[in-house]
Every structure is written in C-alpha cells, then in structure tokens.
C-alpha cells in the first residue's frame, strides 16, 4: 500500500481465501497486483489464531489437488467438449430451420426448445460455446504475448518502464466494453473487433503482474549467481526468470479467458459481435429478453452456459493463485 495511484491499490487477501481477483465483470482495471508471497494468517478481531480452513493448512499441495481447481476445470472441459463434439452428433445445425413451431418449449427432439425462427436452441447454444472458444483461443495468446512482452521490457529496462506503465494506465482508463465499442466503431462489428478488444483489454493487467513477478525474481540469489556466472541477459530472462514466473502467467491466462468470454458475450449482446445469422451466447441472451414473457425457457441455456464459463475461469484463476502462492 505504497501509493494510492488507482490500479496499484491494495492487494486484498480475503479471509475466505479467495485471492485478489476482481473478475472481468466489474473491473479488469481494479485487478490489483497479486502478491502471492504472503500466506495469510487470519486473525480474529480478538487476536485469536485460527487454523481451520484448507487454504491455511496446506502449504505444499499442488494445484491439481485443489477441489476448486479440479471442479472448475472439469466443468470447463465438459463444456468445451460439448461445444466441439456434440454439434456433429446433432441431427440439425444451428442455422437450420428444423421446426415449423417457433418458440416451442423443451421437448425430446429439442431439449432446449426452438427459437423465434424455429431453429434448435441446443444447437445454437453449442455454436455459441464454439464462438467463445474461438475468441479465447485467438485472443488470450495475443493478450499474454503483448502484455507479457511489454511487462518484460518494462521490468528489464528502467528507460522503458515509465512509458510502458503510462501506456497501461491509458488502456486501463477505458472499461473493457467501452474499448469494445471503440473497436467496433473502427473495425466494424464482428469477431475481429471482439478478439482485438479482448487482447487490448487483458494485456495491461498481464503486463503489470508479470513485471512485478520478474522484478521480485530478479533479486533472488539464483539470478544473481547466474549473472555472476556470465549468463547473458536474454538467456537469463528466457531460461531462468520466465520459467519461475510461469505460475503468474497461468493465473493471468485463466483470468484473460474469463475476460474473453465476458467481452464476447457483452459485445454480442449489444449487437457488435457475431453478426445475425450466427449464434453467440450473448446474442441469444439479448433475443431471450424480447421473448421473456412468451418463452421464458429461451434464456435458460445461454444463461447457464455463459455464467458457468465466466465463473469457472474466475474460480480457476483465484484457486490457482491461492494454491501457487501457498507453495
């Protein structure tokens, strides 16, 4: 808590063990720099120490033993597999008119019902999952690469540090959906602007966190001894320091995935994402609002799937941060 300049505010470790990860929903910019090196000791206001709760007890468990990590990974894998495999098993595609009864409730033929044109809602929800996956796969590596490189430069060079940090300030000054609107205005609405938005919105946080992580590694003994042994700067960063920052990058990747799903849904909800004939979780939700009274079942599928995706990625990032900090 050194300077109250906005983004670098307090890194909270709440008692519940949920680490500091304001998710994508409200505030990517408030995501405080994680300081994973402080295992928290919950003090009662009475000053009495307490040692129940898994987070405090197990300092050496791997992330894959954590029930939250396992659970959210399980749900995510299930949804991803459903989105990738199920469509080829279904008798009808997402844009096929399969029933002459529009807005028909759930039935054996159409488990989630049919939409306003008589298309199968299950097929459309699955197509929406595919869109989300596509956005994740294309934008998250971009965000990590851009943010990671900038963060690395920023940590390596004192001259670059200030400009890069100000650049991050400027990007963080735009809420992610406002960035999305700007991207849609320039590039036209469509998946390209969604991908660009996610990459731009998620990279400053990654950059900041990686910069701090690299800085904290740079003072360690192994780095100093490597330097003394004459290891070159590039090799030092790529082979020695970066591998030790892997956990931080992993946490950020999970968070960036949550941002990707959130932004894709939001932009499609506003009609700036996937164009009309295509299906997206966001556009399905916005259509469901118009038919809420006559067909309340419409919203169920997209509602559950998009919440599950964002929630699981956020939980995953939280839990990874917690378990890795404990080690």
């Amino acid at each position, binding site marked *: 808590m050194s300077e*109250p300049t906005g983004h670098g505010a307090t890194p*909270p470790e709440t*008692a519940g063990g949920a680490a500091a990860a304001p998710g994508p929903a409200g505030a990517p910019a408030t995501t405080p720099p994680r300081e994973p090196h402080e295992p928290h000791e919950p003090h009662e206001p009475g000053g009495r120490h307490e040692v129940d709760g898994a987070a405090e007890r197990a300092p050496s468990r791997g992330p894959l033993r954590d029930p939250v990590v396992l659970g959210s990974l399980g749900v995510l894998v299930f949804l991803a597999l459903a989105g990738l495999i199920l469509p080829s098993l279904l008798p009808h595609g997402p844009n096929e008119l399969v029933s002459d009864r529009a807005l028909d409730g759930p039935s054996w033929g159409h488990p989630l019902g049919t939409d306003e044109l008589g298309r199968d809602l299950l097929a459309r929800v699955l197509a929406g999952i595919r869109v989300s996956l596509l956005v994740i796969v294309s934008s998250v590596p971009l965000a990590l690469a851009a943010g990671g490189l900038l963060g690395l430069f920023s940590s390596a060079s004192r001259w670059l540090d200030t400009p890069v940090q100000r650049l991050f300030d400027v990007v963080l000054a735009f809420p992610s959906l406002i960035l999305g609107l700007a991207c849609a205005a320039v590039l036209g609405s469509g998946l390209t602007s969604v991908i660009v938005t996610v990459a731009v919105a998620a990279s400053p946080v990654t950059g900041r966190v990686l910069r701090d992580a690299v800085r904290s590694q740079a003072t360690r003994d192994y780095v100093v001894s490597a330097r003394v042994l004459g290891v070159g700067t590039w090799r030092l960063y790529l082979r020695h320091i970066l591998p030790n920052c892997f956990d931080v990058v992993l946490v950020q990747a999970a968070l960036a995935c949550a941002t990707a799903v959130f932004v894709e849904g*939001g932009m499609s909800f506003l009609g700036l994402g996937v164009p009309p004939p295509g299906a997206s979780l966001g556009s399905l939700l916005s259509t469901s609002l118009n038919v*809420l009274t006559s067909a309340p079942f419409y919203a169920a599928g997209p*509602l559950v799937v998009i919440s599950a995706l964002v929630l699981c990625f956020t939980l995953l990032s939280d839990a990874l941060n917690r378990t890795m900090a404990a080690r």
Partner: protein
Amino acid sequence: MLRYLLRRLPVTALVLLLATVPIFAVLRMAPGDPAATLAGPDASPEAVAAIRHDLGLDRSLARQYLSWLGGALHGDFSTSFVNGAEVSGLVGRGLGNTGTLTLCALVLAVLLAFPLGVATALARTARLRTALSALNVVMLAVPTYVTGVLLTMVFSGALRLLPPGGYVPVLDDPVEGAQFLVLPSVCLALPSAAVLARFLAASLQRVFHEEHYFASRMRGLSRRRLILRHGLPNAVGPLVTVLGIQIGHLLGGAVIVEAIFAWPGLGEAMVSSANARDYPMVQAMLLLAVTVFIVLQLFSDLVYALVDPRVREQP
C-alpha cells in the same frame, strides 16, 4: 495538501493528453473516407473535396488533432455524421440519465459492500468464510447481462413486481420513477459491491493486526465499539481509491445495463453510434468516459490524501 495536488496534477494531465491521441486516431484509423460517405455514392469528386475541406480533413494530421483538441476543450465536438445534430447536445441529453443510474448503483454498491466486507473480515468458521467468498465470486464474475436477464425474469416475469424496462423521470414521479430504477441499479451495483467488499475485508483484517487495535481490545471495549470506532475508520482509507475506479467501471457497465432495461442514457447512443460509425459521437463519448475516469481517480487520490496524511507525505 496543495503540494500533493501539484505533484499529481501533471501526471494526470499527461495521461489524459495521451489518451486523447488514440481517441483522435479512431477517426483516422477507420477504413473508408468520411467525406465520401457523407457525400453519398453519386457525388462528384469536387463535391467530396468540398466536404473534405468543410470537415477540415484536407489539413495536416497534427493540425486536425490540435483543432479537434481545441474544440473539445470548449465542449465543441462538431456535428454527428448521422443526423447532423450537435454532438455535445446529444451527449448531454443522455448524460443525466446515465448519471442518475450510476449514482444509484454506486450508493447501492457501498450499502451492500459494508455489511458483506465486515462479515467477511469477521467470519470465524471455515464454512461461513467459504460461503461468503463464494457469494463474492458469484457477484463479481457473473456478467451484468446475465444478472440483468435473471432479475427481469424473476421480478418482472414471475413475480410481476417491477417493470421489465423503461424510464420515467424520477423528479416527475418519484414513486414510479424509482420502480424503473431498482432493477438496473441492482444489476449494475453487484460486481462493484463485490470488489468493494473484498477490499474492505482485506483492509479491515490489516487493521486487526495493528497494535493500536490490539491495545483497544485490551482496554476491554465491546466488539461493536471496536469495529465501528476503531476498525472501520482505519480501514476505509484505501477504499476511497477503489471507489473512484469503480465509478468509472459503473459508467462502462451502464452501457450493457441500459441496453437490458431500455434505459435512455448514453449507452444507447454509444452503441448506435458505434454501429453507424458516427465518429464524432464515438470520439466525444470516449473522451467523456476517459476524462470522467481519470478525474475521478485523481479526485479519489486527493480524498485519500486528505483522509490519510501519510499518503501525502510520501516522496
């Protein structure tokens, strides 16, 4: 205090100035020629050139940027490409409504965050702690467009308590106006409330570790008095900063919430101008969003420095 302000002001101005560059570049990076679009498909090259001259697009980039910046300083954002109306007028009309919504959401977020944050900081059992942090993650991570649809389904669909969307000026008819305001505010407030609660809980727990708190406890003060008089006042400082950032994000989130509840604010104008590529509108609103965000940040830092002298003494 004044010295602190003088130290912060140049940095803030610089960030704001830097932010204007990409905003201006929005117009330049866009594919297509605005003059040609405006002139229509059948216009002669001379007509296009005339329009380009009228818009000032034939001058150098630097001069265009400076004149745009100068106009922006006067509140002059030229006219909308789509309907030719003054952009400042169009923005001003939506701003009041969005402001009302944001303010309500902010108050609600703070009201929700305090009990939640204090409860999280005080939670004794692991089960309660897990429950509270689960609630927090859900509030935080579930997107506003999901909660919006859910709230509409429950409160206006199933229970028929509140209208699904629309707008009645609160000043004209307080009772009905408030009814239209409830669902959007709740929807907008939840993620911010979660963030604030997290920060409050963390801040409170830090205070619990401090010696003055321990000393007060040793004096045998009651739990309630301890928390209300010795815990919270020392914990709210860092929250001011977070609050400033949250207001900016409430404004961003308002775009979605206004679309869900058919609230006639800036969000609607923003989406339609982004769709129509109405650049003067888009630029004006981006500039507005960034200015509000940056000014709020500075303001909250100042309030923090006012509250906590340690901050302003820092080199």
